């Protein structure tokens, strides 16, 4: 049986940039444990001699000419932004006070 601590879930949530509520953290700890118990069976047959497949139909070196294509205008690129100014995306402070 896998075991997930609240701290582990909080760490994963922080890496995932999701501000979970304490309630969600509790439940995810239980849920992740049972999910991981089930998916770990992949290791039963994944022996060293089996190569990994990352892509169902692998293609190699898909290239195009290095020229400017049909791209979005600045206005179009910003059209869905929650906040923008001077033709750029605007965000809040990158660093907190203590940083």
């Amino acid at each position: 049986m896998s075991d997930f601590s609240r701290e582990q879930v909080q760490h994963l949530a922080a890496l995932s940039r999701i501000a979970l509520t304490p309630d969600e953290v509790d439940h995810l700890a239980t849920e992740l444990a049972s999910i991981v118990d089930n998916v770990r069976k992949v290791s039963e047959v994944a022996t060293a001699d089996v190569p990994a497949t990352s892509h169902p139909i692998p293609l190699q070196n898909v290239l195009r000419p290095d020229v400017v294509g049909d791209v979005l205008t600045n206005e179009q690129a910003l059209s869905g932004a929650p906040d923008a100014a001077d033709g750029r995306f605007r965000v809040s402070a990158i660093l907190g006070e203590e940083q």
Partner: protein
Amino acid sequence: MGDDLTRLTASALADKLAAGEVSSVEATSAHLDRIAEIDGGVHAFLHIAGDAALKRASEVDQLRADGHDVGPLGGVPIAIKDVLCTYDMPSTAASRILEGWIPPYDATVVARLRSANLIPLGKTNMDEFAMGSSTEYSAYGPTRNPWDLDRIPGGSGGGSAAAVASFEAPFALGSDTGGSIRQPAAVTGTVGVKPTYGGVSRYGAIALASSLDQVGPVSRTVLDAALLHDIIGGHDPRDSTSLDQLWPSFADAARAGAENLALSGVRIGVVKELGGAGFQAGVTQRFTETLRLLEQAGAEIVEVSAPHFEYAIAAYYLILPAEASSNLARFDSVRFGLRVTPEGGGTVEQVMAATREAGFGPEVKRRIILGTYALSAGYYDAYYGSAQKVRTLIQRDFDAAFEQVDLLLSPSAPTTAFKFGEKTADPLSMYLNDITTIPANLAGVPGMGLPIGLAPEDGLPVGLQIMAPAREDARLYRFGATLEALLEDAWGHPLLDLLPTVPHSYEPKPVGRVPAHLAPQPGAGTEPDGGAL
């Protein structure tokens, strides 16, 4: 009902348009009226194009009147799954985080529809970011199955399937990551095709798991699916995984299959691992009857084994969350969609975390966190690495099977449409729920879902899954059209003629919103694409 334009297949409607018997405005109005009439109950649509659709229809009518060639499907209406970007309609993937977002560009498949003069009717409902197999995870409320409004329409593409089954649209676009086209087809009595991976462009399809996602047609007949596949398929330089090759006409393949019903020389494999225990009796019964029908038409049926399919769901449940956790990182409150600022402000990182907490539903959070775990240092080899090896083993199972047979068959889903909230109660059927559809995504092979009757015990549709080797999509259409003709000869009519009158509205039962922690967990059998663990 005889002159109801919504009852026509896309192909029949196209014929009438070409003959000048009806206009695109008339055809489009008929479908918009049907949507207005019943979508309060079915809730297949998240956005209805309305006047924009009528305007486009009248433009196509004008083009035709002026003597221009508007193409084989010019003027025919179509519904579009909300996972696809459309520059003139919101594209939300049924998530709050993209509520109201109108992309500055079209997905390639949508652009191709417009070039072919099809008329977009609107955007269809789905599980949020295509994570689910019932539409219960849509942030905007579920779609209900037109066969019984108390039941799920499948997922994630339940909206497209329900729209097509209930005659709100002649056909639609879907996307399939682990069964999201084929499973909804099964439970709504419609046709759906997941093309060979790379056969249809993913550019502008909001990504769930990039190595598994494929866009494909949803329709009422095999020919309609083929006609649509011909339009959306083919190489797209904007998708680096798009196959740079020419494809035969799938419509020609479907027509040939409907014309020549002899199946002598066709070798069909029944996948031993995709049937038996856990499959509903009526599903097994219709499947067995279909095999008998095929045998009578001259096909040779053999049982084949795919020993690694039993590991498919476990592998899928590592690969999909891993890819999704990476793909969904783009929802960062900076470039598009929702922004939630914590009380008293915060750094960009805190804003991001607050936005994702508020904007993502429970299933999406679960999978992102699971994927982040599977990719963590120290666990990567054991989980993600092993899952990729299982993928190789499943491909080898397919290769071995296709050395013996031309096509593989299985039921599309182990059960007929289940009731909302019901699935979590039956562990065995949960375990097996999407086992049938996931292997094709892992291996990249094409699959078709086709209705083969109603289960005697509940009167609900049963689906057959047909799988072919990679790049052999035409074989699906040829064989599928033959089987469809044999079945309709036997029944005397298409299956959807049996669809009960769809109520105009639905009185929801008094259940509150399910708290995040009580919602089914992945593997609880409500996976679209996924399934039970």
